[in-house]
């Protein structure tokens, strides 16, 4: 279990100056030899594409120019100013932030509750629950999307049937995606359903490391369950909470596949989040320069939000 917290950095002893000093004394080729293949792969699969996308963002490129690999016309910051003055762009930015916040808050709260639950139930309940979580975790995103689409099918979907049976009117052939609020509820349920296993297993692993005696002692002293959580459980799982939340933000901000596929590859305007917006601008409207500009803005926004996370990870990695 120690390994779980270790990478977070809580158990790592601070690197001693002396050891590093010794290592620095003469030039070593070994680390470079070791790291060269990694660098080559990253340059080929990420470096070149990122370079291209930056270049593309300053060009106007048509479909023909793209596929014949002819350079586009240089337009300077035209794409960026086009994007930044586009109403649809700003509404998808707004939507992206709203959806991200809702998704992160709900999935973290539910995961926390579920992790607490896992630590309270009897073994005969816990084991099947854990197996189910693994099962859900293992289900490919596309499969999950198709599943939820099937669920909410207007004619044969089980959701409408159950709601009708429960006595709700008007659900007989109800299309869940006509009203974007309802559509987003379905999509968010799908995203959260898929995210819960990872979050819950991580947090539950953290909670199982809380010394039982501490909780007992706090209870003896008259602490209520909430106080026990705040003073005993929370400090122990805090590093894991930070990581899980950061990862949730990263994943939810990048939301693409679920909304795109559940709308049958043709999402309506109210389902446009940033990922989908850049994709449809580029491929739907064949304006690759514009798509590239949106992509770059997305990455920058993400880096801006994640600056603390990146810093912490850099410190951990560099500390070895």
């Amino acid at each position, binding site marked *: 279990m120690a390994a*779980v917290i270790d990478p977070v950095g809580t158990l790592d002893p601070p690197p001693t100056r002396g050891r590093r000093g010794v290592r620095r004394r003469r030039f070593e080729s070994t680390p470079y030899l*070791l790291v060269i293949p990694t660098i080559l792969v990253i340059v080929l699969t*990420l470096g070149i594409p990122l370079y291209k*996308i930056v270049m593309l963002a300053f060009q106007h490129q048509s479909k023909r120019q793209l596929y014949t690999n002819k350079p586009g016309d240089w337009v300077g910051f035209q794409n960026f100013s086009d994007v930044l003055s586009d109403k649809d762009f700003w509404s998808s930015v707004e939507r992206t932030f709203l959806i991200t916040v809702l998704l992160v808050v709900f999935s973290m709260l539910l995961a926390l509750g579920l992790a607490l639950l896992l630590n309270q139930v009897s073994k005969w309940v816990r084991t099947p629950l854990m197996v189910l979580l693994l099962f859900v975790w293992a289900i490919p995103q596309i499969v999950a999307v198709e*599943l939820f689409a099937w669920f909410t099918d207007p004619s044969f979907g089980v959701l409408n049937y159950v709601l009708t049976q429960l006595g709700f009117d008007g659900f007989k052939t109800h299309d869940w995606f006509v009203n974007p609020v309802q559509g987003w509820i379905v999509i968010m349920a799908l995203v959260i359903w898929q995210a819960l296993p990872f979050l819950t297993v991580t947090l539950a692993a953290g909670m199982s490391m809380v010394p039982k005696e501490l909780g007992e002692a706090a209870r003896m002293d008259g602490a209520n369950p909430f106080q026990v959580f705040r003073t005993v459980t929370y400090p122990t799982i805090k590093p894991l909470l930070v*990581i899980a939340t*950061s990862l949730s933000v990263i994943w939810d901000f990048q939301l693409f596949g679920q909304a795109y596929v559940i709308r049958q590859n043709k999402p309506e305007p109210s389902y446009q989040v940033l990922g989908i917006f850049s994709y449809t601008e580029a491929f739907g409207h064949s304006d690759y320069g514009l798509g590239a500009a949106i992509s770059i803005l997305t990455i920058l926004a993400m*880096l801006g939000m994640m600056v603390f996370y990146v810093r912490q990870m850099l410190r951990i990695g560099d500390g070895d």
Partner: protein
Amino acid sequence: MTVSTGTGRRRAVAPAPRRSGAGRKKSKKALWNSAGILVFAIMGFPVYWMINTSLKKQNEWQNYTPHFIPEHPTLHNFTGAFHADNFLISLRNSFVITIGAVLISLVIGFFGALAIARFSFAGKKAVIFTVLLVQMVPLVVLVIPVTQTMQDLNLNDTLIGITITYLVFTVPYTVWTLRGFISNVPRELDEAAMVDGCSRWQTFVRIILPLTGPGLVATSVYGFIQAWNEFILITTINHDHRKQNMQAWLIDTAVGSRGTDWGVLMAGATITSIPVVILFLAIQKNLATGLTAGAVKG
């Protein structure tokens, strides 16, 4: 199980409480358990419904009153999926691409992780930053330029091209996760091995490699899942229907021109999930460790 709460131990240690206290504790437990069962039912329902639908013939799933238990369970849809266009070839492609990407990343990633975990060198921070940057870059962003690069290299519509493309997320992830595992191997072991006459490379292979075994397993399973589940890059880069993977096949089947055959689709979905479920159940012990150590996409 990853999560051990030690309920049994607590019961043994707890002093025998007075009768009313024991009763309250028991009913509290029953409350928690019923909440657990409720969660199980809600979260498990989609999985159940997938399997349930896959066992029904069309005239049964295409019914305004869904049957919660198939009346005439049949494997018809599974044989239907196996005989569907491009199903077998997509399944095979999925395995080839995924296993290829995982093996290549394990080799490259192990060495990269060694460099980061065991040495300090100029540019180390830059390497770590790039590894982290990858998870901030949505795959959608890479679609256009990667398509171009693959065309430049004449690797579009090939499995090798896709395998190389997938290294963009499997390699950085492997490097970062294995770094965590290698850091947990005490440096004293390296030093002892070298005192005993091992060369540096022998130390890597004979000491560190075996000790990161669980890490290698966890890492390859996560890499497997990511590569297995990918669909954005492959559907854009490869247009040949014989060079697609299972995810692409599922999308194709779902947006079929003659209306969706939900029975076959759910059978295909079940088949697609099985390899990953098996892998997951096999390594459940290392599960939490691997992901938090990596802290990269899962």
